[in-house]
């Protein structure tokens, strides 16, 4: 395989705004680039790319493939897949990383079948095997019960999607400049089979959840919607956000925007405090990579304690308000 020794990060954007995951991917991509000796590149398809370039360089892209077309203002699977597929066939990169967002999870699988590339979804760990020159892609499977490392030995590019908040973003600094390769891809021949007629941004809360350094999450043990006040009070004093298990969402105690887990959000805060959450594997799938996990549960056998750094065995209705009080006293 005579591919270009490049690692591409798909620079997902909508209306000229880069998705947060792009910076996490670039940060992780830098490590892979170091290990493999490959060049880290960003691929940006948009209506007007220039204003986004500086940030991509600041996070470690050495080179930007810049494709511009008025039709690329917002996401449309047919156009974007055509652009990326064309670029891949022209440049033949070794590796491409995408965010596992709504967009990434439409684009990457389409591109994969267009070029017979391997694609591993939702990776939580990436590494490079320098001996065999392959990307090691580790991800949970069976709802998080097992971890599997997937490889793609004979097809190129090797592609992976990565959920947001799995990798930490680290800026290189204010980088002077880098290489920009303007590429024209003719998408005028792509027939418009679908049209986006409305796009609605609904919530503000989850934005907090994804960016929060502290998350206090409540589970069925919280007991009632009113009792979520206690969870919120602790979150507030820590300057953090409120999370929830699916059981509480299903019970209608809190909106689904707060749900953490396999079918909710993946979060990666400094501290995750699980209150009255048993620690079902599907919940763990969304919060296991937090730097520090504190579990509060009255059942000392609850599986949440298996992943906790600190466990407090007892009634959350006493412990959580106490926690809030002592932090308040500390801050006073």
């Amino acid at each position: 395989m005579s591919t270009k020794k490049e690692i591409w990060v798909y620079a997902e954007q909508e209306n000229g705004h880069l998705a947060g995951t792009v910076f996490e991917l670039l940060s992780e991509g830098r490590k892979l680039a170091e290990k493999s000796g490959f060049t880290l590149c960003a691929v940006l398809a948009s209506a007007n790319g220039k204003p986004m370039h500086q940030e991509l360089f600041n996070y470690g892209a050495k080179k930007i493939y810049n494709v511009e077309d008025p039709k690329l203002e917002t996401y449309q699977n047919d156009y974007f897949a055509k652009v990326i597929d064309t670029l891949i066939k022209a440049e033949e990169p070794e590796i491409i990383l995408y965010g596992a967002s709504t967009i990434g999870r439409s684009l990457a699988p389409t591109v994969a079948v267009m070029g017979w590339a391997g694609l591993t979804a939702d990776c939580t760990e990436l590494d490079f095997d320098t001996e065999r020159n392959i990307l090691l892609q580790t991800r949970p499977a069976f709802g998080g019960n097992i971890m599997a490392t997937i490889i793609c030995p004979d097809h190129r590019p090797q592609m992976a999607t990565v959920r947001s908040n799995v990798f930490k973003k680290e800026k290189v600094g204010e980088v002077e400049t880098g290489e920009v390769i303007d590429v024209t891809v003719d998408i005028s021949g792509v027939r418009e089979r679908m049209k986006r007629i409305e796009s609605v941004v609904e919530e503000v809360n989850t934005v907090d959840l994804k960016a929060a350094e502290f998350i206090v999450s409540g589970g069925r043990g919280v007991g009632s919607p009113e009792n979520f006040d206690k969870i919120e009070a602790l979150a507030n004093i820590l300057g953090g956000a409120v999370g929830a298990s699916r059981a509480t969402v299903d019970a209608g105690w809190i909106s689904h925007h707060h749900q953490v887990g396999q079918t909710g959000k993946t979060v990666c805060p400094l501290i995750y405090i699980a209150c009255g959450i048993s620690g079902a594997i599907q919940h763990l799938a969304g919060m296991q990579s937090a730097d520090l996990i504190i579990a509060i549960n009255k059942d000392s056998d609850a599986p949440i304690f298996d992943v906790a750094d600190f466990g407090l065995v007892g009634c959350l209705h006493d412990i959580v308000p106490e926690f809030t009080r002592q932090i308040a006293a500390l801050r006073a």
Partner: protein
Amino acid sequence: MNIVVCIKQVPDSDKVTIDRETNRLNRAGVPSIINPFDENALEMALRLKDLHGGKVTVLSMGPPQAEEALRTALSLGADEAILVSDRKFGGADTWATSYTLTLALKKIEEPIDLILFGKQAIDGDTAQVGPGVAHFYGVPMITYAKSCEVIDSGFKIQQVTDHGYNVWEVEKPAALTVVKEANELRMPSLKKKLAAKKAVIPTWGYEDLNPEDEKIGLSGSPTKVHKVFAPPVKLNKEILSGEPAEMVKELIYKLREKKVI
């Protein structure tokens, strides 16, 4: 309207565990279910049929026992079922699965208006087969569909996004992957259950689909499982118990020691 729903039989991931010594899955005694999101896709199809008439076909690729999943779908109201099964198809990753399912779709004689998938399968959670099939089959694809309404030009779809939702108009035929929020599932009727038991389900194998050999099964799969292991457990954890005020005091002390608060 002709709708095909692709359903996968999966082990109930709630009950799968890993043997920490051998790093193998303990699958014995684990019940098989229809992938939960595929049930929502089926329900979406049945509701469209209730409104507009037509036919719902369920299609599954898997070992012979996947027939059970198809029978369950028939008991819920699907009209026909097709099983794609052959030893040669075994070991397929999402690429080879997409290719093989597409051949089956192409073999279906009546023109198809809509192809539905679950958002993702809970065994692999890849969410790749839907977009893969859509491309191979040559139809537009909308992922994460919450609702689907029939309009003159095709379908009007609400798509769940990371921050809200999009509304799309897409021409017919189209493919969608369906999320759980789309609907509440119906119960099987006794009459349909009995009929489903007796239904003849055709099995399409290698000879029927006439695939390109290098595109099926293990050899058609670009990705390989390199290793499987148990999720790491935390060592050095501290479990506290006793009086709430004391526990919290100790916790805060330790957190300050670590300089995290």
